[in-house]
């Protein structure tokens, strides 16, 4: 419990799925109060609050939450960073503690997305009956669909296919990606908080509705409602807390956020690789561990095609060897490096701003030995990764509580 360490004292995720009777503030309040209870502290102990709700970014979810569970005048940072919003909230609270401005902080992410349908990029409606140039490209008509695609399943489909171009693959790409999805759906059957807990065969996955080849519907992240929250504490403050609190505190070995550095094609197809690799390198260095030390990984499988490239980006395999890593069975829950034992975004669900804290919750829960039927036995070190297009990448490496 060194003075400048940061620890997760309490953490919680709600059931992901449909919550028709709860609004975003209700869900955020459920997660925040449960995380505080898990930590054994109250809003009075919090020195900072960082909160995110991407779809309602202008509303100020942090202050809305305070009005629901406790207003104490502390600084609130409302953050928005695409699908990395939750990780950004957590990182903001961690930075505040690291900077010595607070000795305890609360991070919350919440989203209501059930029934949201296909999410795409910056489409605009056609207007008028004469061609008039608009926007930065002087476009006379919407370009999404006419000049490539801005839909998320299509963007990430290309990310996966590009990997198989750069690292030639003899097999059938569609089936390969469907088998990654099969793994995550199989994992989800052990996670009672997942939005979907249905085991699916490769054939069922491939024969489901095609969204953007090679991603069928079950290979896409599930839009759903959910929230997650974490209480972080300084090593110094943790020393003054009870033995029981100390014994469940999970150490934050690394907390990293990156954006995408310029690469030749990055403004044509989002480059989700370089910034993830940078974040991973920085995280391993900060944590003083390597990928071989990880007992489990939760990575951002927003689409089955994305999971493959992140095996490589997070250096779980040698460069170019992501397919072999998967084919070896290593990323199944009984493999060498289990990936997405929660079921991943494809079955657990992806309530955007909650995801970056929910992934950390999954890792922390295994490190505490509290993951029930899906516990990865003896897990000591784990990594949580998220990516938000635009782009932002969050990586957190956590370590098991001291005995």
């Amino acid at each position, binding site marked *: 419990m060194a003075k400048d360490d940061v620890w997760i004292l309490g953490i919680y995720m709600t059931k992901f799925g449909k919550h028709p009777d709860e609004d975003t503030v209700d869900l955020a309040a459920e997660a925040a109060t449960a995380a505080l209870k898990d930590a054994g502290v109250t809003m009075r102990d919090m020195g900072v609050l960082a909160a995110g709700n991407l779809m309602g970014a202008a509303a100020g979810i942090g202050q809305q939450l305070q009005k629901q569970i406790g207003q104490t005048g502390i600084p609130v940072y409302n953050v928005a960073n695409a699908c990395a919003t939750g990780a950004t909230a957590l990182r903001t609270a961690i930075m505040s503690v690291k900077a010595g401005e607070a000795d305890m902080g609360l991070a919350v992410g919440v989203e209501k997305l059930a029934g949201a349908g296909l999410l795409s990029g910056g489409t605009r409606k056609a207007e008028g009956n004469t061609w008039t140039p608009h926007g*930065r*490209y002087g476009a*006379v008509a919407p370009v999404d*669909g*006419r000049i490539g695609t801005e839909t998320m399943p299509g*963007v990430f489909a290309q990310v996966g296919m590009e990997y198989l171009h750069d690292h030639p693959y003899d097999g059938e790409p569609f089936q390969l990606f469907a088998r990654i999805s099969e793994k995550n759906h199989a994992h989800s059957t052990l996670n009672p908080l997942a939005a979907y807990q249905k085991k699916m065969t490769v054939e069922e996955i491939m024969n489901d509705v095609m969204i*953007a080849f090679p991603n069928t519907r079950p290979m896409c992240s599930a839009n759903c409602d959910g929230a997650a929250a974490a209480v972080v504490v300084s090593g110094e403050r943790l020393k003054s807390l009870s033995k029981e609190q100390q014994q469940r505190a999970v150490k934050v070995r690394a907390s990293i956020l990156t954006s995408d550095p310029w690469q030749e094609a990055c403004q*044509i*197809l989002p480059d989700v690789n370089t910034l993830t690799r940078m974040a991973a390198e920085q995280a391993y260095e900060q944590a003083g561990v390597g990928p071989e030390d990880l007992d489990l990984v939760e990575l951002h499988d927003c689409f089955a095609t994305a999971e493959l490239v992140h095996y490589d980006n997070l250096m779980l395999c040698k460069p170019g060897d992501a397919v072999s890593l998967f084919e070896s069975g290593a990323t199944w829950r009984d493999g060498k490096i289990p990936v997405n034992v929660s079921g991943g975004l494809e079955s657990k669900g992806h309530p955007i701003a909650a995801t970056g804290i929910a992934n950390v919750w999954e890792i922390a829960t295994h490190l505490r030995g509290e993951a029930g039927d899906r516990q990865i036995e003896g897990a000591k070190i784990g990594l949580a990764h998220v990516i938000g297009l635009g782009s932002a990448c969050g990586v957190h490496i956590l370590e098991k509580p001291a005995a």
Partner: protein
Amino acid sequence: MSGQVPLVEYLELGDDPHLVANECTECGARFFDRRNACASCFGTSFKKTRVETTGELRAFTIVSFAAPGIPTPFVAGVIDCGGTSVRANVINCPPDPEHVKVGMKVRLATAPVGTDDNGTEAVGFGFEPIS
């Protein structure tokens, strides 16, 4: 008034249709819309540059669910045109994985987008297989 307009300003029509990029005079980075400074080297000087009209398909997807008014399925991809990456649809080719492969050679082709009330035709572009 009739005639043609390009779908986007960076498409040059006429007898020899091609794409035009803003190239950083310092480092050569290319952009299809304007930049206050180069995202790669922060230089502030740019020149118009013709982009090669042939290339290799680096990545693709076959989109089945798209924005209203876009016929599906269609093929969207990234084409490496002599070192400049271009986003475009793959056209004049059946939209299925038997006909579309990463690594295939393609060339720029124009395609009509529609005609407005003044009789002006908007013309877009895609890339077609070089058979």
